[in-house]
């Protein structure tokens, strides 16, 4: 297991390096000079030259690459030009909003997905089972940004039950949670489908197991068998599925943040692209990628710990 963990972590470091190289070459290839773009058309040549020097753009390519590369590993992602603050600080300020959104998405998907999958497995073949099956496929298929816009249209604009924009008053937890309901539904709805399918499949397997048969033979109530003895085991694969899910929810979170005008990493990158604030784009994309890689490594390590076949196949 240790061997597998070291290999997996090593691969993650290599992957992040390759990703960093791709990012750097992408930014380097952008037509136009980031300094003059950031300063706008009215900047004097002296101002551009000064900013170029401060951003390190006057150095040879390989020095620039080394600065970017070595800086990134120590958390130095450069200076954000507009506010003159470190990129990492700006990105880290927005990260909690995105993480809260993803946590909300997980809450929705677990709170709806596990009971639905459980019910479908217990009433296998019934109309309810088929309905859950069709709905699961449907919510997986519909893009999250369409869910976000329609949730906003129905619950915020037409019914006016919930707020439409922002993240709520700072310090007012209740207000912040109300602002979280709709965006996190958009992030988590597709995963209700994945989790319901997963729980149903593993519940069907577990319900056939001998310890369940024994519990039935002892005459335990069906409800207790289902929830206490079957679900507690059947839920394990879902945990690892969520590991992969968190990474993908990052993508949906970008849309949810833009639709609901919430602060967060996605909104940050989107606005940075519109204002051509390239150091911020690279920094935020890099932080998200590292987060994504780390979450996937953790998920892989959990799967590896549970299933020895994964380890040997590496």
């Amino acid at each position, binding site marked *: 297991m240790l061997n597998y963990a070291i290999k997996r972590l090593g691969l993650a470091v290599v992957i992040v390096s*390759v990703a960093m190289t791709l990012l750097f070459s992408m930014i380097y290839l952008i037509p136009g000079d980031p300094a003059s773009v950031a300063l706008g058309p009215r900047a004097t040549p002296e101002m551009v030259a000064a900013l170029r020097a401060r951003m390190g753009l006057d150095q040879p390519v390989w020095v620039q690459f080394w600065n970017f590369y070595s800086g990134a590993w120590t958390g130095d992602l450069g200076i954000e030009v507009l506010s003159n603050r470190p990129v990492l600080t700006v990105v880290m300020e927005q990260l909690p909003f995105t993480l809260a959104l993803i946590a909300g998405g997980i809450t929705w998907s677990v709170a709806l997905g596990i009971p639905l999958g459980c019910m479908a497995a217990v009433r296998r073949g019934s109309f309810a089972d088929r309905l859950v099956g069709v709905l699961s496929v449907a919510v997986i298929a519909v893009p999250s940004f369409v869910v976000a816009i329609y949730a906003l249209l129905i619950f915020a*604009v037409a019914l006016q039950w919930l707020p439409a924009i922002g993240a709520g008053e700072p310090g007012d937890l209740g207000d912040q949670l109300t602002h979280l309901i709709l965006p996190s539904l958009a992030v988590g709805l597709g995963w209700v489908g994945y989790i319901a399918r997963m729980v149903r499949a593993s519940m069907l397997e577990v319900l056939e197991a001998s310890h369940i048969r024994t519990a039935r033979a002892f005459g335990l109530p069906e409800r207790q068998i289902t929830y206490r003895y079957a679900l507690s085991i059947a839920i394990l694969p879902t945990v690892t599925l969520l590991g992969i899910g968190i990474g993908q929810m*990052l993508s949906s979170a970008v849309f949810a943040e833009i*639709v609901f005008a919430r602060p967060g990493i996605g909104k940050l990158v989107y606005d940075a692209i519109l204002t051509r604030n390239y150091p911020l784009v690279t920094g935020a994309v890099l932080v998200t990628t590292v987060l994504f890689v780390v979450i996937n490594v953790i998920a892989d390590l959990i799967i590896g710990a549970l299933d020895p076949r994964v380890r040997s196949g590496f």
Partner: protein
Amino acid sequence: MSEAVSEPPAEVGTFRRTMRRLLREPLGVFGLSLVILVVGAAVFADLLASAEPSRISPRDRFLPPSADHLMGTDQLGRDLFARVLHGGRIALLVAVGSTVVSLLIGIVLGLIAGYGPRWLDNILILVFDALKSFPTVMLALALVTLFGPSLTAVVVVVILVNVPGYARIIRTQTIALKSSEYVTAAQSMGASPARILRVHVLPNVVGPIVILASMDIPVVIAIEAGMSFLGLGVRPPTPSWGAILNDGFANIRESAWIVIAGGVPIILTTLGFTFLGETLRDVFDPRLKGRG
């Protein structure tokens, strides 16, 4: 499906049998009807909608749905029904086109990784894993800074998202076939690697990957619509469902019919292709069941 039609006569029996089994599944029938509806609407867009999709008419701004404008008009007075039908063309062309291109690239790279030298395999796998490590939307946003908003950017994003997965599947299957007896026999008779891959490996690995790729079509449609919604994909005035959503989103409080016109086609199309794909997969190849 078109590839089934172009198959040799011996296969027609299997095609008929598949169709008959598909038509027994209510969900398959539902998916197939939606797909036919969407494809038909896109193909006959010019006949079905008399209005010009990009013609601006300032006097007709923000008209709600009526007999003249079945889905109403947008902030520039353009007929939404025409824009939705023509937007379907863009969505389907981008989806099918970029899926075919990623399939071709994926197959070639997968065959090279699986059959070629070990070091090349290792490099390719590393690049695939690195590409997969970017969250899709972040990858799209980063690429748009490079290319600028365009259809090209959408196609490149789709290729970068799809190719690693396809190539990996082809690679695994190629490695499994590499040591099979008939490939060893062909090698000993002096067949070149290109001939072995083309004649002996490719026909055996291509079937499942085509089914998997066709199941990705709704995902690709979502990528195009999503990027166009953010203003990073198809450029105005070209009609696109995502762009219509973007127009409508800006006016969601006063003119809700615009977001409805932009979003409902996306929902119907993704549902149609997904239901059809799920049913076809179960009918064609039960081994693939449970993927995803």
